[in-house]
C-alpha cells in the first residue's frame, strides 16, 4: 500500500541486546539532552515581573468606544451579536430620551450590553461587523477569576473611560494602536 507520508517508521521487533537491556546508555543519552538545556537560552519569562510586548494585531478584551465628547457610540444594532460565532454578545436596546443627548450618540442606544467572556473566542468579528466604530478588541487580557459570574462583562466593565472626565485613563485605554488612525 502506498503510504500517505514518508514519516512512517518500521518498528523493529528484534529482541534487545545485553547493552540495550541494561538501559543505562539510553538513560545517560537522555540526561545529556536534558542537561544541555541548562546552557541554552530560556524560552520562558517570569511573567508578572516581566511582560512580553503584544503583537500589533493582538486581540484582547473588548472595549466599548465613546466619541470625543464622551457619548457612547453603540446603537445596539446587533451586528456584533449576529456576527459572533460563539454567541457571546447580548444586548437590550432603548430609545434615547430628551436630555440624554450628551450620553448617547444616536437615538437608539444599548441599555444593556453584555459579553460572556466564557464564550468569547476573541476572533475579532464583532470589531469587523461594527458599523459605528463602537467595539474594539484592546491590548489587554481578560483577568482570571475563581467564579464564573465574574466573566459576564456588562457595560460598566466594557466602556472606555470618559475622555473629558477622565482623560488619562482614556488615553491609557486607547493604547498604542489608536494614534495610527
Amino acid at each position, binding site marked *: 500500500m502506498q503510504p500517505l507520508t514518508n514519516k512512517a517508521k518500521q518498528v523493529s521487533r528484534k529482541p534487545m541486546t545485553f547493552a540495550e537491556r541494561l538501559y543505562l546508555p539510553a538513560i545517560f543519552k537522555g540526561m545529556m539532552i536534558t542537561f544541555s538545556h541548562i546552557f541554552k537560552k530560556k524560552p520562558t519569562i517570569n511573567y508578572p515581573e516581566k511582560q512580553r510586548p503584544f503583537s500589533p494585531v493582538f486581540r484582547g478584551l473588548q472595549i466599548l468606544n465613546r466619541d470625543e465628547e464622551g457619548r457612547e457610540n453603540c446603537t445596539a444594532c*446587533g451586528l456584533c451579536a449576529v456576527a459572533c460565532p460563539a454567541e457571546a454578545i447580548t444586548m437590550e*436596546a*432603548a*430609545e434615547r430620551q430628551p436630555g440624554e443627548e450628551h450620553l448617547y450618540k444616536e437615538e437608539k442606544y444599548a441599555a444593556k450590553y453584555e459579553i460572556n467572556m466564557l464564550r468569547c473566542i476573541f476572533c475579532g468579528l464583532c470589531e469587523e461587523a461594527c*458599523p*459605528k466604530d463602537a467595539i474594539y478588541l484592546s491590548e489587554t487580557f481578560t483577568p482570571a477569576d475563581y467564579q464564573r459570574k465574574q466573566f459576564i462583562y456588562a457595560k460598566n466593565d466594557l466602556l472606555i473611560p470618559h475622555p473629558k472626565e477622565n482623560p488619562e485613563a482614556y488615553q491609557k485605554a486607547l493604547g498604542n494602536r489608536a494614534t495610527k488612525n
Partner: protein
Amino acid sequence: MSEEIKTIKVTIDNITIDVAPGTTILNAARQIGGDVTPPAMCYYSKLEGSGGKCRTCLVEVAAGSTADPRPMPKLVASCRTGVMDGMIVKNITSEKVTDARNGVVEFLLLNHPLDCPICDQAGECHLQDLGYDHGKEGTRYQFARRTFKKEDLGPYIQLHMTRCILCYRCTYVADQITNKRVHGVLDRGDHAAISTYISKAIDNDFSGNMIDVCPVGALTDKTFRFKNRVWFTKPVDAHRDCQTPGCCGKATLWLRGDEVFRVTARKDEWGEVQSFDGKPGWICNTCRFETKKTSEWTIEGLTTISRHSVIGANKYKTLEMPKETVKEVMNGVEPRLLMDIHSISGVNDPSVHLSEIDRPAKKDDFKK
C-alpha cells in the same frame, strides 16, 4: 366545447412562458420566478394602481412582438408594460439594464440616511437588499441630505420621512384598504413628504398595513420600536379568530422566547402580503398591535425564511425543545448548574416583559 383560453408567449432572459393577455412583464417574470424577476420597490400586486414610480424594475425589450419585432427604444418599467405575443425581454442578461438599475439605486439612496443600525426595518428592508445587490459602496452626492423630524402617524405608527423613497404604497393602502385617507404626499420634488394634514391621527382599523407595505423603514411599528432586531426574533405562523370584518386573522408572530414582540401580516416570496382564497391577507390593528400574547393565538409552525435572509441566522429549525435526558440517564439526579445566567445577566431578564410595553423601552425598564 370549452372556450379556448388564449395565451401569449413571452421570452424573458431566454426563458419562454405562456401568460394570459394583459399580464405585465413583471408579473410574467414572477411566474417564472428566481433571478429573472426584476426587483420592485413601488409596485405591489395587491394595490391597484401602484407601480411605475421607482424605476427599479426597468427591463430591455429586445423585440416588441411577433407582428412588430422592433426593439423598444428605451428601457421600460416592467411593472407597467403589458406583454405582447412573441415579446423578447432581457433583464439580467442585459448590461444596459444592470447599469440603469445601478443608477436608479444610486438615486434612491441619494437622500436615504443609511441609518440601518438604528432602523427597525434592517434585515427585512427591500432597499437594503437592493443596495446590497446593485449599490456601489460610495456615493457621488456631495450635498446635504434632506432631513425631516420623525413624526407620529396615530398612536401605533412611526414615520421617518428621511428614510422614505416615495413609493406611494402606503397612500394606496389608505385609499383602498381603509375607508378614509387622511395622509398623502405633500409638496413636490425634493420637498415631497408623506404627512397627515395637521398631524391628524390615522385611527382606521387597517392603517397598520402601511407598515407591511412600506419597502423601507419609513413606516415602522411603534409598539416594536427598538425592542429587538428582526433577526433575533423568531417568526412563527399563527392565526386567531378575529371579529373585525375584512381581517383575515392569519399573521406572523415574531417571538423572543414566548413573548410576542411584533405581529405582521404573512409575506410571500416577493415580500408582499400573502393571499388567502384569492384575497390579500391584510390584518387589522387589533391583531397587529393589541394581541401580543401567545395565548391569544393558535401557532401553526415556523415561518419559512429564505436561506439567504439574515432572519434565519442562528436559529433552530423546529419549535419543539429538545428533550432533557440528563435526569433520565443519571437515575433521577438533576444536572448541577454551575451558573444560572439570569442571576447575573440583565439581558432577556425573565421579570421584564418588553412585549407588554407599548412604547420603545427606556433605561428604567431594565431592572438589573
